[in-house]
Every structure is written in structure tokens, then in C-alpha cells.
């Protein structure tokens, strides 16, 4: 009896230590990654990294072009990510809402299958798709068209769509079923219940999906490589223009660097990308918190 209790206790503590170890692996990896990036990237961080020899204010106002810094790539990535989310959020959340609340089961299963196929598509294939689309358009009814910011954002939007749909769907399915019954019993129509009760209640989960999509759009290189990114374009001049992006700068520097200084700039770019992604995450969180307070009617 005593021996069994002892083995149960030791089994229990073993499991606890094992799980603690798993958590430790995660923390160590993140810590190591950050430390490495900071160690290599921080020395490079400074106005020179962003603007080269151009005065910062001149560059920020767009009065003088930067050819030797990360500023155009930062602006390009911000535009790209913003445009991608703009293009993907409405169809993504809408499709998730339809799947979770309105679609008949058989149709939902078919849509889910399509979603799974899209989710399994490698990003390079998505890039190829964009590239061939442009070729097709050029040979048919739009001869002047070229790879551009808009095309890259559209292909990225397609890439992150399944993330948004799945997140919305799961967030809505996690809403307590009692809340649906309550809304219907109060006389809400299904559409009103979805808009005024279920979507707001599912907002944190949807935000999670948007953040994942943001991160994915910011880090992806394969799609944009074939759809409009270049190593030197200056600030993005419009939806139809070529652009620079941080992820591509990192890739390009890592592949082509010729001096130690250039490599350090690559690390600087990686650090900047990380900071940019964290900044976007913080913005998303802030927006959601504000929206939540308004919905809940709290002061």
C-alpha cells in the first residue's frame, strides 16, 4: 500500500517536472533567440541602419530617397501587412461566421475541405500562382500590368485567409451555447445575435487569428519574391509599384553579403522586423480592448 502511494507520488512529481521541462524548453528557445538577435542586431541599430547617409527627417518626410538603409523596407513591410490584413479580414471573418453559424452541415464540410487545401498550399506555390496570374493578364486583356504591392498583398491575403477563417470559426464555436439560446429567447434574429452578441463575444479569438495573419504576412518571403518585391525600390510609390520588404532584405543580405558590416545590417533588419511585428501585435491588442470596452458598456 505504502509502496503504491509512494510510486503514485513520485509519478505525479515526475509528470510535473516533465511538464515544467517542456515549458522551460519554450522559454529557453525564445530567450536564446532574442538574446542572439539582440546581441548581433543591437550594435547595428541606429539612424544609420535605417536611413544610411540621409538625414532622418528628410527621409521620413520622403523628401530624399534612401538607398542605403532599411527605411524603405520598413515602410514597404508596413504597407504590405496593412494591405494584406485589409484584404483578408472581411472575407476571412465573414467566411468563419458563415461556417460556424449559418452554413448547412454538408455545405460547411465542403467549404472546410477547400479551406484545408488552401491552408496546405506552400507559400511558394501561392507566389507562383500570383506570378502566372500576372503573365496571364498580360497576355490577355491587361498588357501593361506588372507584379506589384497590390498583387503581393492579394496573394498574401489568400495565404492567410485559412488562418482567419479557422480562428473565427473556433472562437465562435467556443462561445457558450447558452449565450445563443439567451439571445434567441430575447427575440434576437440569428443575424442580430451573430452581429451583436456572438461576434463581440468571440473577438479575443478572432484577434488571435488576425495577429497570426499579421505575423505570417510580415515574415513571408516566398510569396512576395515572385510577386513584386525588389532589393532596391525606395519607398512604395503606390499599389501598382514595386516595393521593398524587411523579410526580403534579410534573405537578400544573408545570401549576398560581402562584408561583415553588411551581415550586421541583416541582423539589424531581423531585429527591426521582430519589433515591427510586436508593435503590430500591441496595436491589435489595444484596438480589441477598446472595442471590447465599448461593447460591454463599461466606463
Amino acid at each position, binding site marked *: 500500500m505504502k509502496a503504491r502511494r509512494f510510486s503514485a507520488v513520485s509519478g505525479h512529481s515526475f509528470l510535473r517536472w516533465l511538464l515544467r521541462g517542456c515549458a522551460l524548453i519554450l522559454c529557453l528557445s525564445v530567450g536564446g533567440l532574442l538574446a542572439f538577435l539582440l546581441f548581433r542586431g543591437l550594435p547595428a541599430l541606429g539612424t544609420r541602419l535605417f536611413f544610411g547617409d540621409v538625414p532622418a527627417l528628410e527621409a521620413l518626410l520622403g523628401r530624399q530617397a534612401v538607398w542605403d538603409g532599411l527605411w524603405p523596407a520598413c515602410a514597404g513591410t508596413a504597407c504590405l501587412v496593412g494591405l494584406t490584413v485589409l484584404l483578408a479580414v472581411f472575407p476571412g471573418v465573414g467566411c468563419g461566421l458563415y461556417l460556424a453559424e449559418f452554413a448547412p452541415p454538408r455545405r460547411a464540410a465542403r467549404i472546410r475541405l477547400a479551406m484545408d487545401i488552401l491552408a496546405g498550399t506552400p507559400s511558394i506555390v501561392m507566389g507562383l500562382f500570383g506570378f502566372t496570374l500576372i503573365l496571364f493578364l498580360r497576355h490577355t486583356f491587361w498588357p501593361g500590368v506588372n507584379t506589384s504591392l497590390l498583387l503581393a498583398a492579394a496573394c498574401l491575403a489568400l495565404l492567410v485567409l485559412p488562418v482567419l477563417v479557422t480562428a473565427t470559426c473556433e472562437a465562435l464555436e467556443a462561445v457558450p451555447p*447558452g*449565450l*445563443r*439560446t*439567451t439571445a*434567441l*429567447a*430575447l*427575440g*434576437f*434574429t440569428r443575424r*442580430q445575435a451573430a452581429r*451583436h*452578441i456572438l461576434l463581440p*463575444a468571440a473577438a479575443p479569438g478572432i484577434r488571435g487569428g488576425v495577429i497570426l495573419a499579421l505575423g505570417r504576412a510580415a515574415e513571408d518571403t516566398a510569396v512576395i519574391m515572385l510577386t513584386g518585391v525588389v532589393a532596391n525600390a525606395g519607398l512604395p510609390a503606390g499599389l501598382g509599384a514595386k516595393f521593398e520588404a524587411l523579410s526580403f532584405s534579410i534573405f537578400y543580405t544573408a545570401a549576398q553579403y560581402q562584408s561583415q558590416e553588411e551581415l550586421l545590417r541583416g541582423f539589424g533588419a531581423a531585429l527591426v522586423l521582430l519589433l515591427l511585428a510586436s508593435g503590430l501585435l500591441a496595436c491589435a491588442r489595444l484596438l480589441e480592448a477598446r472595442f471590447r470596452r465599448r*461593447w*460591454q*458598456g*463599461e*466606463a
Partner: protein
Amino acid sequence: MNIAARVCGLHVSFGARHVLREVDFCAPAVGVTVLAGRSGSGKTTLLRALNRLNETLPQCRTTGRVELDLGQGLESVYAGPDARPRPLNEIRRLVGMVFQTPDVLPVSVARNIALPLKVVAGVPAAETEERVRRALMDVGLWDEVADRLDLPAERLSGGQQQRLCLARALALDPAVLLLDEPTASLDVRAAAGIEELLLRLAARYPLIVVSHSPEQAVRLAARLVVLSRGRVRHVLEKGSVDAAALAALLGEDE
């Protein structure tokens, strides 16, 4: 006597499971009608048949007639050959419902009442505040929450939450109130408070209350409908039965 609800030959099944068979009863326009029975006797299903909430569950099939007085005399709630009911959401708005466990929305106290008012009843924003106040006063909650209207409703006590749910139903100007064991999840004191409130409201609204406690049923009921295995076994008027006799009736077919 005026009638608030009339049910004839009601039959409800979920898939192959028959929950109600040939149910007939009337609820008077004034006073509390209590549906009593042991668990599994079909009380809740009968209550939910009145505002067609059973239809939100899978494979539900309802036949028979259910008529409610929603302000213009008795009218059919279900579509039939000679009946074209109002839109479902309007029926449900006019039939207030309170559940067994308080189901406050995950928003503030005031917004719990204001949101349905705005969305379901289309009440203009200028009137909302006054109607929220009036509803909270109706259930005796105003003094307790007047300075906490912006707090999450989930922070109220169980009894307060249940009264908030009742206030939310009252704010929508219901023609009938349905309550599904409204005191089952509350402690004795909170339950007594709710019972008192129900008796007060019974002068203004027809109330149909599900209860599994014979004592409570006898205290509240102007009319008692005793259900067993999906059928109405007895319909009793106030004063014709005491708690012990009712308990015996409920245990009869065990």
C-alpha cells in the same frame, strides 16, 4: 376568466424520443400558473414550446396548437392550415423568458438591458436609460446597482443576476412571462426574494413558472398543472391542494 395561454393536443418529440404527448391546459391571464412534475416529466419542454425555443434544438418536431394572448387576444404561435403566426423573433420578444441559471450577457449591468432594448425592440437611445431604470426598479434591483451600472453583470450575486434577467425580460414589455425553475440555482434567501417578486409581478403579467418543489408550487400557484411522463395528469386550482398532497401526487407513478 381571461386566458393568457391555451395549449391543445401538443405533441413534442426530438428524433425518436417523445417528450410531450397530447398536452392540454390553459393559463389564466392573471396569476401564476405553475407547471409541476418530477425531473424528466417534460415541464421545461412544455415551457419552451410556448416561445418555440425547442426549435433551436436538433430534430425537434412539434404538433398541436399553442395560442398565446400577445396583446390582441389569443393567437396561434405555430403555423398551421388556418394560422399564420407573427415572425418568430417578435413572438419571442413578447414572451419573456427567465432560465434556471442566471444567463446574463457578458456585458455591463446596464447594457444587459439596453442591448436587447436597442437591437430587438428598436428603442431610441434617448429613452433607453429611463427604461433601464424602470426595469431595474420593477425587480427591486435599482437601489443595489444604481452606482454599479457600468460593472460587468457577472460580478453581481446569483440572486441579483436572476433579478437582472427578469428585469431584462420586463424591459421588453412582454405579454407573457415564462420562468424555468427561476430559484433552482439560488440560496434560500435569494429564492424567497424572487418568489415574493413573482407574486408581485403576477398582478401585472400572466406568469407561467416551472417548479419541481411542491412547497414552492403551492405558495406561488393560482393554477397548478401536474405533469408526468409527458402528459398532464392533474390541473388544480389554488387552495385545493397542500404541499404534502402535491408531493404525494408527484410521487404517484414512481
